[in-house]
């Protein structure tokens, strides 16, 4: 079974392709975490039993395959049919029989399962005609959704390990390094350090034992690209790591993966075992004489272990706390030996770079940020999901053309990029081409590729507080500025959103933020003030309103916001009455409803359900003023 040569790999690939092609039709059921949550497992089972039922009839040659995340998580469970290319969305198990009967056997398209384009209302049948997919360019995610991640032959059929074969059999380690350098690829974990430079620095470090690590500890709120890659195409990560190890002369590798990603852990485990079985890991890989193996290490649930030095301490079995990196980990990393640590997406791109050439990769993207980048698009956007695009794509294109615009067509307010260490980018910067430099200049960062879209019903003070509270919880507490600073920052923000802010609070925040940026030990603390500083930079007036006017302009902060029903707009539908959790709304059907301020807890439930937009918010202080009058 071992693949002893490059020819053997290609023979295997041809066989796997043929076997796939021999199937008249394939049903691809997305079994990424998002679709699984929608119930896609039951859908896949229904297809399997339905197809089994009919396979007695020899003329029906159907095959059901569970794949990784297709990315369009909003519309799950997703079912793609091949070779027709039809995509059915929101498929429930009870529709499976109909799909098999009508579409697979009858060749008829079931209209109401197709994706409906929100702007035109048009139903789109073809997977690659849907704007969400049409506008993407996939490199790191090239095989996700197309292959069964638990079947190495399926991955090989789609081209897996051809980059590795080329590297091992056609290139010297230095040529591999050169190719990666030509590609201009930069680290996809967020900081954007050039991959080739990192590798060279490790390679030139003295010592004959070195390590290759993969950072799969993705933990930013709203980010899930690494999870989807590990779940949906673990072989791309493994292939990248073997190529990297070959270039560096390393023989040991670890994938550090969050234990909160159970499917990723399982699929990686299966993929590593299969790769070993086929001689793609272990001794004498593909008959080249090169040895390398990978182990999985599961994280213990600390966000900070995504930081490189903390990750290495954790791998060593010590407390996962960062330490000073004045000596780079490429020289003194894991067990104080030369180590290269790259992000999941970085590794996933390496195989394609070697296979198709550095020039090809560098032909995409911007001057200093080459290639494509995966983003998790979430928040108040119509098409949430996972996307991959060339660097330099504008935020507007991402949010409006791929994301389909803002949910309920409300006005756009800001997009938060880069996770808790990133910042909020306002509307006037929507035409910003997304790359490392542009985002940093705008006060945000690339980070993990999380993009949280916010509408006008978002209070920027509240948003900053959310990220601070997250980081306060996740700070390891080793260094003073981060541990104490985040705690005190949250105290100040609690004051602001409760209407207890005082003059001087903004200055206090700014001074504290500056000291945290300069004084903290690791990037968690150094970048923690980013959400604060970027919201202050673009939305300072909102802070001032909270402090001076005791008002939340977005109508979100509960202590500052009151709700009332606009007389002329209310059609008495009674929806708000039913939604109110504290019975603060009175009124009978088809008559004007009234919110009673003494009982109202300003939760906003009525606002969200009102179909006629008949509920408005106003500052609570006006109530008090009215009382005084």
């Amino acid at each position, binding site marked *: 079974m071992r693949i002893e040569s490059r020819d053997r790999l290609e023979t295997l690939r041809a066989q796997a392709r043929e076997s796939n092609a021999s199937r008249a039709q394939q049903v691809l059921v997305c079994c990424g975490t998002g679709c699984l949550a929608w119930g896609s497992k039951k859908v896949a089972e229904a297809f399997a039993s339905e197809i089994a039922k009919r396979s007695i009839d020899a003329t029906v040659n159907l095959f059901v395959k569970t794949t990784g995340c297709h990315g369009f998580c909003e519309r799950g469970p997703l079912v793609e049919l091949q070779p027709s290319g039809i995509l059915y969305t929101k498929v429930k198990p009870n529709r499976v029989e109909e799909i098999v009967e009508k579409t697979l056997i009858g060749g008829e398209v079931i209209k109401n399962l197709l994706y409906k384009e929100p702007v035109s209302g048009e139903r789109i049948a073809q997977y690659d005609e849907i704007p969400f997919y049409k506008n993407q360019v996939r490199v790191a995610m090239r095989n996700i959704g197309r292959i069964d991640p638990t079947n190495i032959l399926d991955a090989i059929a789609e081209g897996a390990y051809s980059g590795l074969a080329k590297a091992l059999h056609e290139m010297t380690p230095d040529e591999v390094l050169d190719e990666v350098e030509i590609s201009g690829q930069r680290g996809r974990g967020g900081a954007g350090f050039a991959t080739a430079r990192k590798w060279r620095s490790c390679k030139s470090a003295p010592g004959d034992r070195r390590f290759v690590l993969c950072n799969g500890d993705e933990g930013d709120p709203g980010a899930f690209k690494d999870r989807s890659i590990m779940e949906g195409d673990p072989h791309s990560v493994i292939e990248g790591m073997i190529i990297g190890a070959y270039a560096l002369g390393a023989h040991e590798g670890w994938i550090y993966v969050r234990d909160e990603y159970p499917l990723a852990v399982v699929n990686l485990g299966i993929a590593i075992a299969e790769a070993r079985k086929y001689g793609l890991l272990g001794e004498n890989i593909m008959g080249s004489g090169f040895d390398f193996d990978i182990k999985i290490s599961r994280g213990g649930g*600390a966000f*900070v272990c995504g930081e490189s030095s903390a990750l290495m301490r954790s791998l060593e079995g010590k*407390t996962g706390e960062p*330490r*000073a990196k*004045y*000596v780079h980990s490429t020289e003194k990393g894991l067990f104080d030996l030369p180590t290269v640590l790259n992000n999941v997406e970085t590794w996933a791109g390496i195989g394609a770079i070697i296979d198709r050439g550095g020039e090809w990769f560098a032909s995409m993207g911007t001057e200093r940020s080459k290639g494509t980048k995966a983003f998790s698009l979430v928040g108040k956007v119509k098409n949430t999901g996972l996307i991959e695009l060339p660097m330099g794509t504008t935020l507007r294109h991402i949010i409006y053309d791929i994301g389909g615009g803002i949910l309920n067509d409300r006005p756009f307010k800001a997009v938060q990029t880069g996770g808790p260490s990133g910042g909020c980018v306002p509307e006037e910067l929507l035409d910003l081409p997304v790359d490392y430099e542009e985002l940093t200049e705008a006060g945000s960062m690339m980070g993990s590729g999380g993009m949280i879209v916010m509408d006008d019903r978002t209070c920027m003070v509240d948003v900053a507080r959310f990220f601070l509270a997250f980081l*306060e*919880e*996740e*700070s*390891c*507490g*080793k*260094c*003073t*500025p981060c*541990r*104490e*600073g*985040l*705690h*005190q920052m949250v*105290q100040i923000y609690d004051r602001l959103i409760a209407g207890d802010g005082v003059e001087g609070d903004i200055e*206090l925040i700014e*001074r*504290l933020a*500056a*000291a945290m940026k*300069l*004084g*903290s*030990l690791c990037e968690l603390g150094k970048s923690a003030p980013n959400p604060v500083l970027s919201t202050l930079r673009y939305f300072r007036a909102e802070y001032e309103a909270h402090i001076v006017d005791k008002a939340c302009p977005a109508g979100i902060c509960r202590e500052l916001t009151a709700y009332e029903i606009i007389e002329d707009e209310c059609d008495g539908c009674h929806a708000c009455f039913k939604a109110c959790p504290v019975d603060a709304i009175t009124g009978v059907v088809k008559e004007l409803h009234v919110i009673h301020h003494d009982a109202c807890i300003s939760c906003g439930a009525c606002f969200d359900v009102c179909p006629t937009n008949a509920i408005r918010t106003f500052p609570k202080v006006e109530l008090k003023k009215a009382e005084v009058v």
Partner: protein
Amino acid sequence: MPTLKVNGRRVTVDGDATILDAARAAGVAVPTLCNFDGLEPWGGCRLCVVDMSQANWDDDWFKVVTACNHPVEDGMTVVTDSERIIETRRVILDLLLARCPDAPLVQELAREYGVEETSYTPNPEPDDCILCGLCTRVCDHIGVSAISSANRGWGREIAPPFHQPPPDCIGCLACAEICPTDCITYETSNTRREIWGKEFEMLRDPKTGEAVITKEQADHFAERSGVPITYFETSDASKRRQMASTFQKLQVVK
């Protein structure tokens, strides 16, 4: 041996020296709370931040680093009192004063940087622990690791496992001795000792009867050093007397 400039003063130090070593050699005081000469630098308190520029960097390009664990390099320029360094230290001390308002060491240092009262929300249940980690590090250094930091972030604390009397503690009191704010409490007498909720029996000098060491500590030292336990249970005074009598005998021989 690298030569560098600290606040304009030229100083030459060993190649493995840190910026803190160089500053001291140049006679420049840099405040620290978590540094201890016998222990590996940790870089946790962040008070020893300084501005640093390497020889091949642009003249006006300085980076903020901690002096305690940053290696020196030839031609390096270090500034320990720039405006942003003083301000960063001031904020750190202001923050520490909110956590430990009653610790004299913190009060004193804060006052030096012009902070009399904290600008932040004071700790509702203050103690004097500044989380410098010296106690756990010295415990690790001795090879015991009976205590460690527990929890994370603002809720971080120093504690024995599960807040129970630590099974590995040898009662050596190194943690309490090294604590810069004296916030690790213990009791010790001629017969017993108690620290971290764990009780120890004292080994007494066979001749004088005075308490010398806990049995656990004597065992630990004996095991690690190969020296018989009787050596550790002998008090210093006894050892001197023994030595004196030995010398006396030697004189007789002469």
